[in-house]
C-alpha cells in the first residue's frame, strides 16, 4: 500500500466509520424475503378475487349465468372419447408407444393420443397432443424438428375443477430448442367448453391471443421467455380467459422463483392449529423390510447397507410411481430414500434421501410446470393428508404404504394438513 493509499484510506475511514460493532440480523433478511413473496401472492389473489367477485355479480344479474357456471373444467366436450380432439398421426402414436415402453413407470397399455392444437411457428410444425392418465389430463407438445422434449404434463382433473376456473395454464416453462438454440417458449393448457378466447399477458402488459381448439390452447413466442431472469418483460404472467358471455377471468401464471411458504396458515382455509405434536415418526414397513408394493433394484445412489427397496404407486389414478428404500447411508445415518419414476422418461429418474425420523418428508419437482408434484413419505402416525385451496375447496391426498403424491398449483398458495388416526391435526404446511 502506498502512502497515497494510506492517506486516502484514513481520510475515507473518517467519512464512513466502521460497522464492525453493529450486529447483523439474518432472520430479518429471511423475513423480508418471505414478506415480499407474500405481498406478490396477495396482489395476484386480489386480482383473481376481484375478477371472481365481478363474475359473481354477472351471475346474479344476467340470464347468461348458466354459461359461466358451465365454464369450469368438468365441461370438456373434446375429451369425452377414448382420445381427445382428433386422432394423432400413426407416427405420433407409435413414438408415444415406444417412449412409454422404454420408461419404468408406464401409462396404461393402449393409451390413445389425440391432437388438440396444431400450429406452425418459425417454419416448424407443432402439435399439442392430449391423452388421459386415469383421473389426469395430460398434454404433450411435439415439434417436427425441435428436440429435448419434456415428458407429458399431467394434471388431475379434480384439481382443475376445484380451482373453479374456466381454463388452466398447465405449462409456461416449456422452451423448445434446436441444438443449443432456444427456438420458442410455449404456454399451453386446457379450457372449458364455454371458453371462446384465451390471451396470454406478459409482464410488460402486452396481450397475445393463444390458439384455441379441442378444449386446449397453445401460445408460442420466440426465444426463451420461461423465467423473469431470461426475459423480464416478455415472460407470461397471466392468461385472460374469455367465456361465451364475455366474462374475462384472469388465470395467474408463475414463472419466477418457486414461492415457498408465503401465507400464514391462519389466513387460509382449513385447520390452522396443530392439535398434536409428533416427536418424529417412522415407517415401520420400511424399517422391517416388509415386501410392500413391488420389488425394485435400487438405483438411487450408494448405501452402506440397504434394508429394503420397493416401488409404490401412491395415487391409483396416476401412473407416477416412486421407489422407496431404507438403509444406512455412507455417512452412517439411517435414511429413507426415493427414486422418482416418470412415464415417458427413459430408465429411472433422480433420487433423494432424508433422515428417517420425520412426520412428513417432502420431495418436490417434476410434473406439470404450473402444477408441480409433491411426493414423499409420511410416518406411521400420519393417517391422512388433505390439501386446501384458496377458494376453500379441499381434497384428500392419496397415501399408499406411507407414500403420497399430489400436485399443487404453483401460482396460488395451498395448504397441506396431516391428520392422525383420530383426525387430530399433526402438521400444517403452507406450499
Amino acid at each position: 500500500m502506498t502512502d497515497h493509499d494510506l492517506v486516502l484510506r484514513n481520510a475515507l475511514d473518517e467519512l464512513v466509520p466502521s460497522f464492525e460493532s453493529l450486529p447483523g440480523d439474518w432472520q430479518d433478511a429471511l423475513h423480508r424475503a418471505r414478506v415480499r413473496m407474500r405481498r406478490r401472492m396477495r396482489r395476484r389473489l386480489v386480482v383473481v378475487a376481484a375478477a371472481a367477485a365481478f363474475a359473481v355479480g354477472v351471475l346474479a344479474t344476467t340470464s347468461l349465468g348458466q354459461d359461466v357456471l358451465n365454464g369450469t373444467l368438468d365441461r370438456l366436450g373434446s375429451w369425452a372419447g377414448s382420445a381427445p380432439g382428433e386422432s394423432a398421426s400413426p407416427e405420433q402414436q407409435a413414438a408415444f408407444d415406444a417412449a412409454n415402453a422404454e420408461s419404468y413407470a408406464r401409462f396404461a397399455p393402449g393409451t390413445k393420443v389425440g391432437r388438440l392444437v396444431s400450429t406452425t411457428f418459425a417454419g416448424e410444425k407443432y402439435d399439442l397432443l392430449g391423452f388421459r392418465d386415469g383421473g389426469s389430463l395430460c398434454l404433450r407438445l411435439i415439434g417436427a424438428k425441435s428436440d429435448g422434449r419434456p415428458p407429458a404434463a399431467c394434471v388431475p382433473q379434480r384439481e382443475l375443477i376445484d380451482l373453479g376456473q374456466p381454463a388452466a395454464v398447465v405449462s409456461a416453462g416449456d422452451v423448445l430448442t434446436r441444438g443449443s438454440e432456444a427456438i420458442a417458449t410455449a404456454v399451453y393448457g386446457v379450457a372449458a367448453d364455454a371458453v371462446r378466447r384465451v390471451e396470454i399477458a406478459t409482464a410488460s402488459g402486452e396481450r397475445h391471443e393463444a390458439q384455441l381448439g379441442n378444449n386446449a390452447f397453445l401460445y408460442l413466442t420466440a426465444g426463451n421467455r420461461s423465467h423473469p431472469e431470461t426475459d423480464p418483460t416478455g415472460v407470461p404472467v397471466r392468461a385472460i380467459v374469455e367465456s361465451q358471455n364475455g366474462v374475462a377471468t384472469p388465470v395467474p401464471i408463475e414463472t419466477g422463483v418457486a414461492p415457498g411458504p408465503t401465507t400464514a396458515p391462519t389466513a387460509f382455509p382449513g385447520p390452522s392449529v396443530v392439535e398434536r405434536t409428533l416427536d418424529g415418526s417412522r415407517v415401520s414397513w420400511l424399517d422391517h423390510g416388509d415386501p410392500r408394493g413391488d420389488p425394485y433394484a435400487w438405483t438411487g445412489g450408494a448405501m452402506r447397507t440397504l434394508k429394503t427397496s420397493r416401488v409404490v404407486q401412491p395415487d391409483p389414478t396416476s401412473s407416477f410411481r416412486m421407489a422407496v428404500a431404507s438403509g444406512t447411508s455412507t455417512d452412517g445415518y439411517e435414511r429413507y430414500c426415493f427414486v422418482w419414476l416418470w412415464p415417458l422418461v427413459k430408465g429411472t429418474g433422480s433420487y433423494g434421501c432424508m433422515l428417517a425420523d420425520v412426520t412428513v418428508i417432502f420431495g418436490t419437482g417434476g410434473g406439470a410446470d404450473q402444477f408441480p408434484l409433491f411426493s414423499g413419505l409420511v410416518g406411521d402416525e400420519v393417517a391422512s393428508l388433505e390439501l386446501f385451496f384458496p377458494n376453500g375447496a379441499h381434497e384428500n391426498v392419496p397415501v399408499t404404504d406411507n407414500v403420497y403424491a399430489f400436485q399443487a398449483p404453483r401460482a396460488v398458495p395451498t395448504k397441506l394438513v396431516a391428520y392422525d388416526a383420530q383426525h387430530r391435526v399433526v402438521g400444517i404446511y403452507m406450499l
Partner: protein
Amino acid sequence: MGASLDELEAAYRSSLPNFRRVAAAIVGDRERACDAVQEAFAKAIRKRRSFRGSGPLEAWLWRLVVNEARDNARPFEPPLEELLERGEARTNGGLDARDELRVAVGLLPERQRLVLFLRYYADLDYAAIADALEIAPGTVAATLNAAHAALHRTLQEVAR
C-alpha cells in the same frame, strides 16, 4: 446452479460490515445503509435459484447490494449544494478537511465513487471490483487512478 441459503448466510455473516459500509458510502446514512443491505439479501434469498454461477457468488451479492443502495441513494450527504456554499465560506475559514473530502468524493463521477468505495471500504481487489461492477479489470485501474487524481489536492490538505 443456484446459491444455497447456507452460502448466502455465510457471506452475510462474514462480510456484513463491508457490505454496510459501502452501502453507507452510497446512500449517505448508516440506518438506510443497513436497511439497503437487508433488502439486498432478501432479494438474494428470493432469487437464489437464479444465480447462474457464471461468476463468484460474492460478486453477485455485491451487485445486489450496490444496486439496492443506489436505488435508495440521495444526494451525497451532507447535501452538496450546502457544502459548496460552505466551501465558499471556507475561504473565510468555515469548512473543515473532512467536509472538503466529502465534497470532493461527492463530485466524482458515480463509477469512480463506486470503485473507490469497493476498494477502500470493502478491501476488494481489482478483479473482485471488476466482477462486482461487471467492468473490465483494466477499467477498474483506470477509474481508480482517475479518482485518485481528482482527490489528490484535497488529500494533501487532509493529510496535513
